[in-house]
């Protein structure tokens, strides 16, 4: 079992007075894919967003508990959130290319953070596009608008964009739900390749997807983590009855 890179300890999360996450404890292991499943509204996306403090942009939210990334508690107030988000990147449900060329999209993060310049930047952009399995399709179009790409290509562009800032962990919030099955399959392949270098945490509505790609899976229900196990175990012989009901489709 790979070492744990991020530990979530006793995490509670509140929108105003309403508590939506209850004492969640999860180990995220290095260089593998951890999937989070559960019915709509169970808090899995909210949970994912606490891992890179994206919930901070919403007003009136607060946490209890801690999340340790290599020993440091990322929920504490003296953490530089901007630096955190460089180490823990995120891909969203809908592809969101910036209104610039493909090259500028991928170069955006590194340019702003001064990670690379000139020819080093060009190499970084190429490498990121290759890692996102997009380079071959766009290598002659780098200076065209990113808007012209198809949905699946745009999502891979968003992945390349995140990879360009060289994160350790990549969070994916239902990355394939807006895509057709073929693009979905390509991105699933991509995830399996990426896990050789990056730690991936994916929220998905699609249980078959979780079963296909992930190494460990967590099942959320109404803000609680009901079960967390190796995916093989979870999808063949879950321990909790609620997990079994969800997986066999009795609800959700």
């Amino acid at each position, binding site marked *: 079992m790979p070492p744990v890179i991020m530990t979530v300890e006793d995490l509670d999360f509140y929108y105003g007075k309403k508590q939506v996450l209850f004492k969640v404890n999860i180990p995220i292991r290095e260089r593998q894919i951890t999937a989070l499943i559960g019915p709509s509204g169970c808090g899995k996306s909210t949970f994912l967003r606490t891992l890179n403090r994206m919930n901070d942009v919403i007003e009136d939210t607060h946490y209890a508990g801690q999340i340790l990334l290599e020993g440091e508690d990322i929920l504490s107030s003296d953490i530089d959130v901007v630096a955190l988000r460089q180490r823990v*990147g995120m891909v969203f449900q809908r592809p*969101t290319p*910036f209104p610039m060329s493909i090259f500028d999209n991928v170069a*955006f*993060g590194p340019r702003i*953070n001064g990670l690379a310049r000139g020819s080093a930047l060009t190499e970084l952009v190429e490498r990121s596009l290759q890692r996102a399995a997009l380079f071959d399709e766009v290598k002659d179009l780098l200076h065209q608008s990113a*808007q012209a790409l198809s949905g699946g290509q745009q999502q891979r562009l968003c992945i390349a*964009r995140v990879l360009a*800032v060289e994160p350790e962990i990549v969070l994916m919030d239902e990355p394939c739900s807006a895509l057709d099955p073929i693009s979905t399959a390509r991105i699933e392949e991509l995830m399996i390749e990426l896990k050789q270098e990056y730690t991936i945490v994916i929220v998905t509505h699609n249980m078959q997807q979780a079963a296909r790609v992930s190494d460990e899976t967590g099942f959320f229900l109404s803000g609680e983590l009901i079960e967390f196990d190796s995916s093989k175990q979870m999808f063949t012989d879950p321990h909790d009855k609620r997990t079994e009901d969800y997986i066999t489709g009795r609800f959700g």
Partner: protein
Amino acid sequence: MTRSLKTPKGWLHARRKMANRLLWVGAILATLIALVPLLMILTYLVVHGLPSLNLAFFTHLPKPVGEVGGGMANAIAGTLELIGLACLLGLPLGIMSGIFLSEFGNNRTGGIIRFLADVLASVPSIVIGIFVYTIVVLPMKHFSALAGGIALGIMMIPTVMRTTEEIVRLVPQSLRQSSLSLGVTQFRTTFSVVLLAARAGVITGVLLAIARIAGETAPLLFTAFGNRFWSYQLNQPIASLPKQIYNYAIAPYDDWHAQAWTGALVLVSLILILSVAARYATRGRYRIVR
């Protein structure tokens, strides 16, 4: 017994049809009548203004009384300079406050600021002229292009602010969040991504604000004042198209009347070009990129 679906006959139905038709005809008629003043203005402008429209108009200074010919070159240049000065004041303030309102203005403070901007937008332009007279012209002890530019700039601010706010608001949250999640600061997210996505709409707002101030006369009466000669210095009075048109129109000379019409034609054409350019900038959809 089921009711038939066939169109009913009888006088009740005929009365409804008649009322429907009258309303239609009335609406179309009202529209045509509303267009009449506009069409008449355009016709007069072309008919009276075109004869004196020649190259000399754009290159020569006004001739002294009695001499025929001359042009409004200094007034045209003056209007352009005043617009430039107004933009220097109005654009940064208007765009920045528009961005502030859309990103951080969803609260009572924002509501108050919006209200004040709307009030400023409805202040009569002559009042703005008098205000700038008091704070700029009196201390400087003369009329000036600077004062004129400040007056027009003040008029630009609320328009630019409101259109910028509305267009920036349309940029989807998902774009902002994508940028933030790359480890980019709020500041860079707003300026390098959100504003970029909104640029077509912001430019439109600016062009429309310029079109509005280009024809303003009242605020220039006691600020820029007007000038019969070439002038570009900030601390000297400067000519402007609307002022020159006014001067010529109230004079007793036919030649000057003709030139006033030409000046009006040029002014309206300038505003028309700006408005068309604004439409061109947002052709197709409203150009907010997803």
